[in-house]
């Protein structure tokens, strides 16, 4: 469905993405894992067409069509939606208006109504807060609003950037549960996460990103066996001395 081939993205002279290729199949939940500054957000923004004149090199295909170099407006229209990192709701629009902005490019009144009801059924709290300014919602509610707003574009592919950021463990579980449900209803999902444990639990394929390069890509069960992934992303240490500290310094294989 989404084919990213060898893209390079620059911020000025700094290369943030150094030749990334990845593929997302229809119906999947794919995850991109990586530490702070690895370039996860940059990949999503590049796909979404939010960075002017980027990617510098490489191609992006969606449903067989080249989308690199296209405007965000066009990309939304083709069926990709993006839940930005840090929610980015419209703070002084009501919850209702925020959701309706999600349907900005659409004309099908009936379809919009259906999607609105679907969002409300996933996030009933949004209907209680309908007329409240989005800026006055709690962090968790804002995350739900951001996801709901993205769903209002009726995406074929939903890209989510760290939806668990700053949420309590219970809320994280809830958000991931709903993510799974949205996927089951037929939306392909590309998820960016630091919470590797959770992300590996719900995804069917995952990419590990480091310093703008993909260093591992596999199904979660295989990645979970990987010593490096275990240590650097899940915080599980396999070799410990009796005294409780590591006996030797572990080196990442890919460096």
């Amino acid at each position, binding site marked *: 469905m989404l084919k990213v081939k060898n893209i390079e993205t620059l911020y000025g002279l700094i290369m943030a993405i150094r030749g990334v290729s990845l593929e997302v199949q229809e119906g999947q939940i794919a995850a991109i894992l990586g530490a702070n500054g690895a370039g996860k957000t940059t990949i999503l923004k590049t796909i979404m067409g939010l960075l002017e004149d980027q990617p510098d090199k490489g191609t992006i295909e969606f449903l067989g069509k080249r989308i690199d170099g296209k405007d965000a407006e066009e990309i939304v*229209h083709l069926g990709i939606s993006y839940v*930005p990192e840090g929610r*980015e709701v419209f703070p002084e*629009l009501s919850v209702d208006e925020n959701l309706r902005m999600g349907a900005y*490019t659409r004309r099908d009144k009936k379809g919009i109504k259906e999607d609105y009801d679907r969002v409300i059924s996933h996030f009933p709290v949004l209907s209680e807060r309908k007329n409240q300014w989005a800026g*006055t919602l709690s*962090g968790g509610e804002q995350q739900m609003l951001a996801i709901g707003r993205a769903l209002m574009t009726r995406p074929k592919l939903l890209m989510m950037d760290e939806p668990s950021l700053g949420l309590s463990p219970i809320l994280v579980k809830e958000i991931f549960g709903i993510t799974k449900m949205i996927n089951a209803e037929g939306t392909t999902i590309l998820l960016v996460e630091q919470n590797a444990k959770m992300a590996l639990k719900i995804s069917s394929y995952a990419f590990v990103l480091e310093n703008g390069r993909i260093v591992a890509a596999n199904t979660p069960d295989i990645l979970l066996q990987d010593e490096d992934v275990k240590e650097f992303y899940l915080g599980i240490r396999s070799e410990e001395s009796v005294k409780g500290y590591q006996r030797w310094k572990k080196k990442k294989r890919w460096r």
Partner: protein
Amino acid sequence: MLGQLIVSGLAVGACYSLLALAMVIIYKTSDVLNFAQGEMAMISTYVAFTLMESHHVPFQWAVILTFLFAILLGASFEFVFLRQAKEPTVLGLIIITLGFEMILMGFAGWKWGPDQRSLDFPVSNIETYNLFGLVMSKINFWTIVISLVLMFILFLFFRYTKVGVAMRATQQNQLAARVMGIRTKWILSFTWAISSMVGAVAGMLIAALGVLDPTMMMDPLLKSFASAVLGGMTSLPGTAVGGAMLGIIENLFGGYVSLAFKSVVAFAVIVLMLCIKPSGLLAKHYVKKV
């Protein structure tokens, strides 16, 4: 006396409000203070004047054509000057509007000369209405009515139309707006167009209340800037109320205290407001959650 002073102050204040709203709409979208706002309105008013005076176009058609001109003027200024600026800073853009202001002022002086003219408004400024025992000139009455109607239309537009809400969305978060598929560049041109049109209404009303000459907007622009400060530069209702208050206050000051210092009131208001409540009369606040 008091009633009359209030009504005529309100009429002038309504014009300040409109001009201030025009400024605030742009400021909210792009953080740019448009110093050319007054001159854009002045040029539009001259267009209406020329259409009626030299081409004998009936009043209502002249107004419609003037609106079209104002819309075109606003949108093309944004497109031709501001958008072309490479890696623009807000300060740089403000300087561009200052330059544009001088160009327009010079153009008006060259084209129409410094003579004071009067805009042929179909409402008399000598005849009066007698409402609830209050005598007011017809022009004052209609200025207030027209301003209120236009503000109400603006309110409905920003509140209920898709484009209006999208304009507010773009003001609040450009990144998110683009992600929703909103063409933010188009929205920016549109903002300038609407602002310029609202300014043109203010210009025509100010010319109808007073006279038409190339410098007619200098004083009102300062006052409307004060009104915008009263509204905290961002609140539309606050700005509208601010303009009305300023018009009334300065008129009362002129009537009871000193006519010579009437115009100074606006500065006093700016200073006072910035000292006491810089966020504006009706500013609401939300706490950003992290």
